[in-house]
């Protein structure tokens, strides 16, 4: 190969497109050796991801796109995909077909071919199709569509090398099939007329897209193309001609837009009939059996709650020995060893042992709990249960004017609120999407768990497990109520409902589950090493200095000295604001640091309440009653999850809404904590 064509190849872009949950990210990972997240539910990928692929000596850019059903975007994540394919015109589009969901995949492939994309078809999931009783004759498919077709089983890595070869040869030889769909004589006549007009009046646009495609899209009423044409010099004339075509067709075709999509769909059905071969009669599948129970009218909900409960028990119980081990190592051995080091100045020793080690240690203790939670969570994701939750809760959510799909960001939020806010993108209706992003932070994330465990463990002891679960339930309940209020007051509008294609149940892949658990746990570790570290360093510095100057490490040993530090001053001001709740000033100061990230609350408490877990527990028992402790945990649940989540809301919805989230959460947190204390007192609980 010549040097020139090598350089050209390096600049080439390859896009991975396909209907949702077809395994795009999995194929992306296998092509690039990357680690994009995969999961068995539609909407795992909501943003495009870029990776590099090596084929021979060539390094090419591969872009993994969110799932789409057609080139007409319906939700925000789909818009990302459509814009990339339509605007950036990648050199090769690998369209991934789901052999077990063939007709819908084919519909998308046909849309891509009409656009004149240089398509390579990857026929994935042939193993699942076989289980369901049919085969796809890919050789025949190749001859019908006139583009290369490569069968693959992405989960096992079968056919990936062949796919790479097909991509490479497609780069050298471009094949397109714009006229794949026949829209019938009448419509075709108008398409031809518009096509020649376009070539005459809008030559620039015709250089970018096939003129036939533009003509079809104009007749179909595609907003994006209509606005593009209207901006052209002869735009208004062109649009008049489109209207004329529509008028002349109105006599024969009732609704042109649906007629066009149906033609395309029938073409997909026709091709499917030619290439699908039934190899055995369908049997009752595992998916049928599981769905019979898991989405049962009556049993569905209790089963979902039990699964969630099991997930939490699993992460608490299995991790318990590891938690103790880390506690002993970090908070006893290492701490004592640091303090016993000869030759180090006292203040440095205190900074390392009482500041950094205690602060980070009190958070890291919970690492095993969080890791096991993520493990269980990844299992649920891979099996395909997540999408079912949307069905189970839809009826309840509907009475709060929210679609059941909101359950997906809320459940993801149990892990971390940042991806939860992003997951709201898959919600089609704009108002509902905004509400989902705003209430997602009320879902209790893993960062709050250490706070619950420390406080509930100290003051509620035997009831700790039940109390922690009640906080998760409280989060969801508040999310529904706040969501309902938002829908009533700010984001009014009818509920449009939602559509979600359910994935089949699959047995989880161990490597995938382990990888995902590790990636998420790593993020927690990374946070401990950066944001939380920073938080506890600041907390320590503010503890050993005060308005009166440097106090020295003795502040952390003598409470009366600590009260004169900056933390003491801040804590007392906050304690005044939280007077009705009767929280200790140290706990109030910890809340301030919790703005950065919730784990910092525990880290700061570790520093302020002294060293080691036992002493934290005792100190907390002294300063909280069960009632004030519960109110404190509720406050931690509700007030701003972390800066990263607020930043993500700003990213998704803009500054205005991130401020709205910040304000409503703090007010709601205060109100709920106050109500808990108030109601508790009325009931005579202390």
């Amino acid at each position, binding site marked *: 190969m010549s040097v020139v064509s090598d350089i050209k190849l390096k600049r080439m872009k390859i896009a991975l497109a396909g209907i949702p*949950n077809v395994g795009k990210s999995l194929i992306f990972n296998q092509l690039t050796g990357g680690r994009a997240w995969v999961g068995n539910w539609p909407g795992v990928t909501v943003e495009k991801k870029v990776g590099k692929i090596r084929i021979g000596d060539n390094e090419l850019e591969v872009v993994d796109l969110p799932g789409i*059903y*057609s080139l*007409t975007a*319906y939700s925000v994540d789909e818009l990302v995909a459509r814009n990339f394919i339509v605007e950036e015109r990648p050199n090769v589009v690998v369209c991934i077909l*789901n052999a*077990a*969901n*063939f*007709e*819908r*995949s084919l*519909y998308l492939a046909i849309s891509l071919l009409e656009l004149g994309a240089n398509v390579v078809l990857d026929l994935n999931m042939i193993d699942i199709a076989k289980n369901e009783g049919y085969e796809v004759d890919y050789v025949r498919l190749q001859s019908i569509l006139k583009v290369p077709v490569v069968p693959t089983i992405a989960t096992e890595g079968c056919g990936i090398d062949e796919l790479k070869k097909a991509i490479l040869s497609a780069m050298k030889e471009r094949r397109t099939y714009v006229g794949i769909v026949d829209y019938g004589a009448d419509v075709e006549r108008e398409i031809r007329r518009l096509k020649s007009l376009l070539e005459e009046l809008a030559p620039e646009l015709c250089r970018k897209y096939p003129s036939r495609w533009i003509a079809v899209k104009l007749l179909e009423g595609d907003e994006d193309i209509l606005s593009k044409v209207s901006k052209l010099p002869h735009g208004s004339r062109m649009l008049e001609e489109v209207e004329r075509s529509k008028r002349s067709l109105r006599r024969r075709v009732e609704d042109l*837009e*649906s007629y066009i*999509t*149906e033609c395309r*769909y029938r073409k997909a*059905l026709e091709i*499917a*009939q030619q290439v*699908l071969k*039934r190899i055995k*009669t*369908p049997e009752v599948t595992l*998916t049928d059996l599981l*769905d019979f129970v898991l*989405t049962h*009218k009556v049993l569905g909900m209790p089963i979902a709650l039990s699964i969630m409960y099991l997930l939490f028990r699993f992460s608490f119980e299995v991790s318990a020995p590891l938690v103790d081990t880390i506690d002993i190592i970090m908070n006893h051995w290492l701490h004592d060893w640091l303090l016993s080091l000869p030759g180090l100045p006292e203040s440095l020793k205190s900074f390392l042992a009482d500041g950094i080690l205690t602060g980070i240690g009190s958070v890291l203790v919970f690492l095993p709990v969080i890791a096991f939670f993520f493990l269980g969570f990844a299992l649920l994701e891979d099996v395909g249960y997540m*999408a079912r939750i*949307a*069905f189970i809760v*839809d*009826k309840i959510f*509907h009475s709060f004017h929210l*679609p*059941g*799909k909101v359950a997906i960001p809320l459940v993801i939020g149990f892990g971390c609120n940042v991806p939860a806010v992003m997951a709201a993108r898959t919600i*089609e209706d704009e108002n509902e999407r905004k509400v989902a992003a705003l209430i997602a932070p009320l879902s209790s994330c893993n960062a709050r768990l250490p706070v619950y465990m420390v406080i509930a463990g100290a003051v509620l002891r035997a009831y700790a497990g039940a109390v922690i679960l009640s906080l998760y339930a409280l989060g969801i309940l508040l999310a529904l109520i706040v969501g309902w209020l938002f829908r009533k007051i700010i984001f009014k509008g*009818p*509920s*449009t*409902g*939602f*559509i*979600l*294609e*359910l*994935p*089949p149940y699959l047995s989880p892949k161990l490597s995938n589950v382990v990888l995902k658990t590790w990636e998420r746990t790593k993020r927690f570790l990374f946070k401990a090493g950066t944001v939380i570290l920073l938080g506890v360093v600041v907390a320590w510095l503010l503890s050993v200095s005060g308005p009166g100057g440097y106090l020295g490490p003795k502040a952390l040993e003598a409470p009366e000295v600590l009260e004169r530090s900056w933390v003491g001053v801040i804590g007392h001001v906050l304690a005044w604001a939280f007077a009705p709740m009767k929280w200790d000033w140290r706990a109030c100061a910890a809340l301030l640091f919790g703005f950065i990230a919730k784990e910092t609350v525990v880290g700061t408490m570790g520093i302020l309440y002294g060293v080691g877990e036992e002493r934290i527990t005792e100190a907390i028992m002294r300063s909280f009653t069960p009632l004030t402790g519960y109110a404190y945990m509720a406050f931690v649940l509700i007030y701003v999850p972390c800066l990263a989540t607020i930043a993500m809301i700003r990213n998704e919805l803009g500054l205005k809404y991130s401020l709205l989230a910040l304000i409503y959460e703090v007010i709601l947190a205060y109100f709920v904590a106050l109500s808990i204390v108030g109601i508790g007192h009325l009931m005579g609980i202390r």
Partner: protein
Amino acid sequence: MPLAFAHEGAVVKVLQVKAGRGLARRLRELGIFENQLLRVVKSCGPGPTIVEVLSGSVPQGRPSCVLTSCYYHRMGGRILLGFGISMKILVEEVGNQ
């Protein structure tokens, strides 16, 4: 009758989709449009539904009792339709399993 009221296990024919433009288009792309056959896999009557799209339309003059999934190829994955949407799709029951 809205799809939300259809019985579990019923095979229904879509009569009308009373949805806005974007929603109607999405449903068409999934194979749900007039005269298409759906099998109601799950229904929270009235509530959200899970349906399967059956390929082919109702054969003229065939008795409805032969409308079992053996005669019709089930197309692709199951689709979950929220309560709101299930109310917007009007169907008639043409058979039962």
